[in-house]
Structure formats: C-alpha cells, structure tokens
C-alpha cells in the first residue's frame, strides 16, 4: 500500500448530456507505483481526460474510490480539495496554461503561494526547478518570449513546485512540433529516472505513449486488460529511421538527423 502513489477502485463516471446519460468511465481499477511512468492511451472520447481529472481531484467519480498516497480522497469535501491539488498533484496541460503576465520563475512560484515556504526559499526552489528542466537562462522571460517547448518546460517545473506525489500530464505534447514532443517526453523520462517522480501521461499518440515505462489503454471508458511495456523508454529509437539511440543522443547514429 505504501509504495502506491495512486490507486483507483471501480471508478465509474456518468455524465448527463442533453438528457442522455453518457458513461465516460466504467469500472476503472488501476494501481500506480511510486516512481512509475505511466501512459494512458486511447482515442479521443475514450475518457482519458475524465480519468485524469478524477485522479487529479479536479472531478469526482460517480462511483468508486481514489487513493492518493494511500489516502482516500474520494470523499474529501470540495472546499478542502485544493490542498490535495496543491500538495500532492502536479498538472501539465496541453496548452501549457502559464500565466501570461508572470515570468517563468513567477509562474513556477505560483503554486507555492500560501505554503509555509518563505519567499526567498520559494524563489530559490523555483530557480532550481527551472534549471532542472533546462531553462536556467530564461527564468525572467514571460511566456510569450518563450517557444512552445520552453513554455511546456516551465509548466512541468510548475507542476513539480510542491514536490507532488504524482504529475498528471494531459496531452502534454499535443501542441508541440515533432522534435519538441520528444524533447518533452525525454525530459519527463529524465525526471522520472533521476528524481523518481511519478508521472502519468494521457495521450492518443502511441509514439508518445510508448515513451513511458508502462502503457495502459482506455476505450469507451473501460480500461483494457492488455498492458504494454514502453519499449521506447527502455530502448529509445530514432523517430525517423527507427534505429536504437541513447536517451541523451542529439543526433541519430543511424540516419544522422537531429533528434
């Protein structure tokens, strides 16, 4: 139990859409180990985002239970949920969702607001986080001065701000070009490997999903029995020629293209 970062039991989610009931999730049971890097794959409309929202305490299941770090969070009243979202969960969005009027370091500091950390320490750890995601030279830039990939790095740093039990990423590469996508996935992989951060990525893109350690498949709100190892994560290959590469390679040894 204790080594589980997240666990769900028989999650159901029903929506009422124009008088019709839509079952967005049905009997979803899963366990995520501490230090896991999981991708949940599925076509659009399969309930991926709904699941992620429930895992991140943004939404509540119709039935079922969610345990975060072993604590049942299903029945935590709405007014206290923010504490869980602040301290136990880090969100990464498809559209980055940085505050445009705050610079990179301020954006990363934002979730630390209201914590007991003193101002100076907050700033220090925000800088460290930006360094960790490879943005140490752009900490004073506002989002519009950053590239899409850089913005997503800031968002990832922000997700890590309060040292959460789990990072939930909803299509984190959806708005990025091919090259940047893999950079971001590599960053997530690196954080997982080096910091032991538990990460869940939701995506419809199998190439992205396969970058995780473990892949789960969601279809029509149901979790499929099959589970794949993320081969790419273990043995990364060049997206162009498919040959095996090392995680830190900049150019593919096979085709010579920049990764």
């Amino acid at each position, binding site marked *: 139990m204790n080594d589980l970062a997240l666990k769900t039991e028989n999650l159901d989610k029903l929506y009422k859409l124009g008088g019709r009931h839509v079952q967005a999730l049905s009997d979803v049971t899963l366990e995520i180990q501490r230090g896991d890097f999981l991708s949940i794959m599925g076509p659009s409309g399969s309930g991926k985002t709904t699941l992620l*929202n429930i895992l*991140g305490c*943004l*939404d509540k299941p119709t039935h079922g239970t969610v345990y975060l770090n072993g604590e049942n969070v299903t029945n935590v009243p709405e*007014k206290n949920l*923010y*504490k869980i*979202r*602040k*301290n136990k969960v*880090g*969100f990464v*969005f*498809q*559209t980055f*969702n940085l*505050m445009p*009027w*705050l610079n990179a370091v301020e954006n990363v*500091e*934002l*979730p630390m*607001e*209201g914590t007991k950390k*003193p*101002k100076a320490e907050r700033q220090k750890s925000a800088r460290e986080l930006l360094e960790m995601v490879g943005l140490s030279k752009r900490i004073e830039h506002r989002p519009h001065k950053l590239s899409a990939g850089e913005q997503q790095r800031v968002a990832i740093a*922000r*997700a890590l*701000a*309060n040292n959460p039990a789990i990072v939930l990423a909803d299509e984190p590469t959806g708005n990025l070009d091919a090259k940047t996508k893999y950079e971001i996935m590599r960053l997530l992989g690196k954080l997982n490997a080096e910091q032991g951060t538990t990460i869940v990525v939701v995506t419809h893109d199998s190439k992205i999903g396969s970058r995780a350690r473990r892949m789960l498949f969601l279809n029509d709100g149901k979790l499929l029995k099959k589970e794949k190892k993320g081969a790419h994560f273990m043995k990364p290959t060049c997206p162009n020629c498919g040959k095996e590469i090392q995680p830190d390679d900049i150019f593919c040894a096979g085709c010579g293209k920049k990764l």
Partner: protein
Amino acid sequence: MVKNLGVFTRALRNVARRKVRASLIVVALSLSVAILISIPTGIMANQEAAEQLSSNYDAYLANMETEITTAATLLEVSLSPGFTAAGFGGGRPSEGGFGEGGFTGGFMSRESFFNETAVSNITAIEGVAAVIPVLEKSEGTLVTRSTQFGEFEFLRPEYTIVGVPLDDSDLSDYPVLPSEIIEGRALVEGDSGVVLLSENNTDYFGVGVNDQVNILERDFMVVGVYSTTVTQEMNYLYMSLSEAQEITELEGQLSRIDVYAETEDLVDEVSDEITEMYPEFYVNTAESRLEAITSMAERQVDLVDSAKANLDETQSVAYMEIGVAVVATSLIVLFTMLYTVRERTQEIGVLKAIGFSNGNIMSQFMLEGMILSIIAGLVGVVIGMVGAPMITQVLLTGLSASNSGPEQAITGRQIGVPGLTVEASVATPTVELLLVVFAGAVLLGMVGSLYPAWRASKTSPMEALRRE
C-alpha cells in the same frame, strides 16, 4: 503576510493588463464619487446659507423690536407711509423705479420732503416733550436697469446724509444720534463743519478720524466713526441739519420729524392732533411700528418656510440622484467584473488545478476590484474637490449657492429686507465628507466585485479547463 504581497502584486498587474476595462471602472466610479462629494456639499452650503439668513433675520427683527419699545414715546412724522427712522429706512431712494434691493415688501417709497414750518406747529401741541427735525438724503450714482417693465433709471445709494439739529439742546436726551462710537467722538451740541461717519462710510470715502472729507463739494472734518448692526443705517453719515440742508440744496426742507410725547399715554392724543393738523402726514407710533414689524415678520417666516420647503424638495431630488449614481456605478462595476471573470475562466481553472483555494481566487478578484476602487476613489475625490461647484450647478439647478447670491439660491428672489444679506458660502467639501465618500467608493467597488468574485471562486476547474 509575505504571501499577500505576492497576491497584491499580481492583482496590480491584472488591473494594469486590462487598461480599457480598468479605465471604464475608474471613470464610472470616480464620477460617482465626484457626485457623492458635490451634492452633499452643495446642499450643505445652501443649508448653511438658509440658516444664516434666517438667523440674521431673527436678529434683525429682535433688534427692531428692542429699538421700537425703547422709543415708546416716539412718533415718527413723515410723508412716507412706512417707517423712516428706527431702522427701516423706508426711503430707499429711487427715481421712479425699483430700488436696488428689489421689491422691498411694501415699505419702499420715494424720498419725500416737506417744509420745516411744521416743526413749530407740532412743538406747540400739548403733550409734546421734544421735536427733532431730521433730513435724510441719499446720494449715489444713477444707474439704468432694464426690467420687464421697461428701462428704469434709479439711484444706487452709496451713502445717506442725515442732518440733525446740532443746535438743539434736546438732542442729547433722545436717541437720534448713533451711540456706538468706535473711534473719535460723537456729535455734540454746537458742532458744525463736522461729520460722524459709519464704518461703511470710512471705507467708501477712504478717510478716518480727523481727516477732511468732501461731501457734495463741501469739506467736512471727520470727528468720529460709529458702528451699527442695523443694516439700513450702515451707510448713514451724520452732520448738522443746516449744513445738510445747504449741501443737498434742500433749504428749509425735512424728511422726518421725530416727535416725543411726554408720556406713553399721550402718544395717541398727540398722533391725532398731528393728523388733524397735517392730514398728508403719516404718523408712526411705537404701536403701529410694532404691528408693522409683526406682519413683516410673518411674511418673512412664510418666505423662509417656502424657501426651506423648496430646499427640501431639491434635496430629495439630490438624494435620488445620489441613489441613481450609486446604483449605476455598482452595476457598471458588477458587469465589468463579471465580464472579466468570464473572460478569465480558464485562468481560474488553472489556478484551481495548481492548488488555489476558493478563498484565494475570491480574494484575488476582490483585491482587483478594491485596487480599482481605490484608484477611482482618489480620482473622484480630486474631481469632486475641483468640480464640486460646477457639478452642483448642473445637478441641483434649484440650488446654486456657489455662484449666485445664496439668498437668490434659496428663495429664488431676494428676501424682502433690503440689505439683509448672508455671506456667500462656497460649496467646499469637508475633509470628513471626502473621507467618507472615499471609503464609500472602495466599499462600492468591493460590493460590485463581490458577486463576480464569488462566481469566480465557484468556477469548476474542470469546466474551466474544458474551454481550451
């Protein structure tokens, strides 16, 4: 409080980020503040003027009554129907037109003169203790004023020459000469070539005690300066009767005879005698003067009452205007903030997703509303301080103490006592009012932001994020 510092900075940036919207709120709120400052200020100025006028008038009437009763044995004999002495100075001089004071409630009359031969005849009447002939002649400049009845030329009096018989030994026994000497000395028996000036006269002629003053081309020596609270006498200058008759070219003429009966009981008898002898004369006894003053007081009370009613009516209009301004401003703040909240739904969703509580979100929006209100409050206070009189004039057309005379502002016309004026009070907002209104503006801004902020705090993060 370190945490709030960050919130505050963020709120400031959010306000600055939406300049047009911020300006809209600031303009609406500050105009409202200016109105809130100006209207009560205008009302206060007018109320002050009304009270001042009313108390001036009370003092004036009280003064009159005292004078009349102390001169119970006095009969004023003249060709004018109203009072001539004891303060009412009926002879508001005008050459066939209205006096400068406007309509003076029936006491206005021309200056009329009669031959002094009447003096010896009246002195002969039994029961008469003393007879003091007086000449009053106003001097000033002729001005033309066009009225709805045509053009009138009339005299704007600048001073009134009062001639009294300085060779008469009775003079010292009766209150004919002013008693409140503030400089120099009073006129005494046997004086000639000298004048006693009022305070107003010294200003007008620009002279003081022991100076020479030229009156109607003759030089006089100023022996003293007196002070009076009786408005009508404020421009009276006293000299000997004979000299007054000479310089005004009214030799042998009088405008009034003050007759003193031996006792109060004899007043009516003496009055009848005089009327029999000179039917053209008006004889004013203390009793008739009291009657007149009472009816005058009643009329004035009516006038002041109707003025006050008018003021009340204008006030209720003013309060309505304030109400409209407050409601309109609240609505503008409300809708602008609501729009802002709607527009920032996604931002709210993100903030919630990264762990902001409902309270955090709510206080963020409230803070933004408050910052706007404080800015607007300051701007409004400045506008209000500078523009209070103008705004009052536009919004309170019935009240305009700041520009026209307050009397006119209150009654719509001048009070019927000539020269009875109040000092024009300018609509100046008090510090207390400024503070109260400023606090009110901040409150208003906060009330206007309350619902939008609450809406923001209740936004479901999931719903908000779905709008992507």
